[in-house]
């Protein structure tokens, strides 16, 4: 086996876009000051969580998307509270970016993937929206670096793309292999919002099934809102510690949120509501987001009121019934 001789690090190329500031020591200090080590209840409503933990101008990441295990009740509340100038981590998103832009909440997106709706295109053309280019995995790797408390992470993808030029990535000569290697900036969002199947009131959370970057997002973010289909006891958490995905000390708010991902699915709990999903897509793709927001979000005061007013028990029960697969979704 031959080993490449050590070579000096050299900057070969770099993207020109602005990126969320990288500050691992600042993050550590935030953790020291703000993250409670005490096992206390953090239960609150989605309204309180958004009032307390989402500020105008925040960088926000949310897990999954509007169709699958998305924290939709919090996204809806953010729109209801008319938050402004949010910077969205647009990895594996879908129609949700179109809604957040349509509601005037988002002015920057790192992407990823999102549904390019007429509203998004208009916002871009009018200069109300800036987009920075990454890919889904590059974004989740940025969170991975943020979750490890390190300033950047090398990846074996993204080099040679035009996205690279419009990102915060750099190409360096790696001192160990001597090979050109892409590095990407760590991402430590201001806010993460994660919808899980179960959590205790302190924030110990269980995610069942596949996901995108639930755990890195929770570890990497300054303010973490967990919304849970079910609140379980801390004793139950302790009965199966291996099932804990997110430890309580990352978590700042816990919201009890049955059907919190409506109209999307929560695997193992309920199937999606295809008619309502289609209603969103139709609104977003026709550039008619405003009436949609009026009906589903502004016209109600909470997720529960939305479920009562526009969905109803029969449909919710049917969604549960149609989710026939349970294996793997309980501890």
């Amino acid at each position, binding site marked *: 086996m031959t080993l490449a001789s050590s070579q000096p690090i050299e900057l070969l190329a770099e993207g020109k876009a602005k990126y969320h500031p990288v500050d691992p020591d600042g993050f550590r200090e935030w953790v020291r000051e703000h993250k409670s080590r005490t096992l206390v209840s953090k239960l609150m409503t989605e309204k309180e969580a958004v009032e307390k933990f989402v500020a105008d101008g925040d960088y926000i990441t949310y897990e999954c998307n509007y169709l699958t295990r998305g924290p939709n009740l919090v996204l809806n509340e953010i729109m209801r509270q008319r938050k402004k100038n949010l910077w969205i981590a647009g990895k594996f998103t879908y129609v949700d970016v179109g809604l957040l832009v349509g509601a005037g909440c988002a002015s920057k997106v790192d992407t990823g993937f999102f549904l390019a709706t007429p509203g998004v*295109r208009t916002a871009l053309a009018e200069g109300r929206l800036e987009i920075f280019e990454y890919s889904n995995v590059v974004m989740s790797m940025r969170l991975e670096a943020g979750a490890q408390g390190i300033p950047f992470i090398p990846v074996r993808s993204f*080099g040679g793309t035009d996205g690279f030029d419009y990102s915060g990535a750099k190409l360096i000569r790696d001192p160990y292999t001597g090979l050109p290697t892409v590095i990407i900036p760590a991402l430590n969002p201001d806010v993460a919002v994660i919808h899980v199947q179960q959590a205790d009131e302190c924030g110990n959370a269980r995610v069942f099934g596949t996901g995108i970057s639930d755990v890195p997002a929770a570890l990497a973010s300054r303010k973490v809102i967990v919304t849970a289909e079910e609140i379980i006891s801390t004793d139950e958490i302790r009965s199966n510690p291996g099932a804990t995905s997110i430890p309580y000390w990352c978590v700042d708010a816990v919201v009890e949120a049955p059907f919190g991902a409506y109209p999307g699915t929560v695997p193992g709990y309920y199937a999606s509501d295809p008619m309502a999903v289609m209603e969103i897509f139709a609104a977003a793709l026709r550039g008619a987001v405003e009436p949609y927001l009026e009906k589903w979000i502004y016209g109600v005061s909470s997720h529960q009121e939305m479920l009562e007013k526009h969905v109803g028990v029969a449909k919710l029960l049917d969604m549960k019934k149609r989710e026939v697969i349970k294996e793997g979704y309980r501890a």
Partner: protein
Amino acid sequence: MTQAEAFSEREAAMCVVARMVESGKTYWAAGGGTPIYSVLLGKKLYAPDAQYVTEDGVIAPIPMLPFEPMMTMVASRATYKALSWGNMNTAGFYAQLGYMDYGVLNTLQVDKHGNINSTFLGEYGHGGRRMHGPGGADTIAACCWRTILITDQEKRKFVEKVDFISSPGFLDGSEGARERAGLPRGTGPWRVVTPWSVYDYVDRRLRLMARMPWVTVDEILAECEYKPLVAAEVQVIDPPTEEEVQILRTELDVRGQTTDAAGGWIVWDGEKYIRQVTG
């Protein structure tokens, strides 16, 4: 095998990709739609021991079909009876480590060196049309050993140079360009499949290698803004079989999401296949 008598062009493309699927190999299927249906069809008929992952890091599921509409990832049916559940980073790690033999993806635009555009049509940042972005395709195209691309045979989709490289092909086409950009050695584009044709690469340049029986080489070239190399002998692809089409329609794409989207319809008139373009 009985030849199918009528099928859509998208169905034909999926059948071609399905026949490329090999047992003992791994496939990273991008998003939903044609890539995943192609791999599943291949597994059912030709290569039961082919395995696949999706962007949420699921390994070798036995999905409960059909999928719910648009629910091909982070959904219980799509990830059913997998060997392992993961996330986007585990999927990325498997690819970086060399476990992914083939990536299968869809795109809007491809160029002579197999570069892929799913970000922007036109000059970036100057008018033009914003699209959805690379999603997971950038990592698939960067790190899988071989990449299979599915697209439509349309002039505007085969170009000299894509408007924006969202996911890497052979970049500028020079030897070692991918490695100089930081990508793993020995990887890159392998095939492009359209409803009319299959392309490979010679010296990192796109080459027409096979055609469907209902189109001529000239008809294909007329639908390429960039004229690819043409193999000395362009093979003729066997049309879809009844069995392939039946599985696609009754088990996989039961809602016809990939059937009526675009393109023509191919019908056997008793002597030959003819192409009918629907409105």
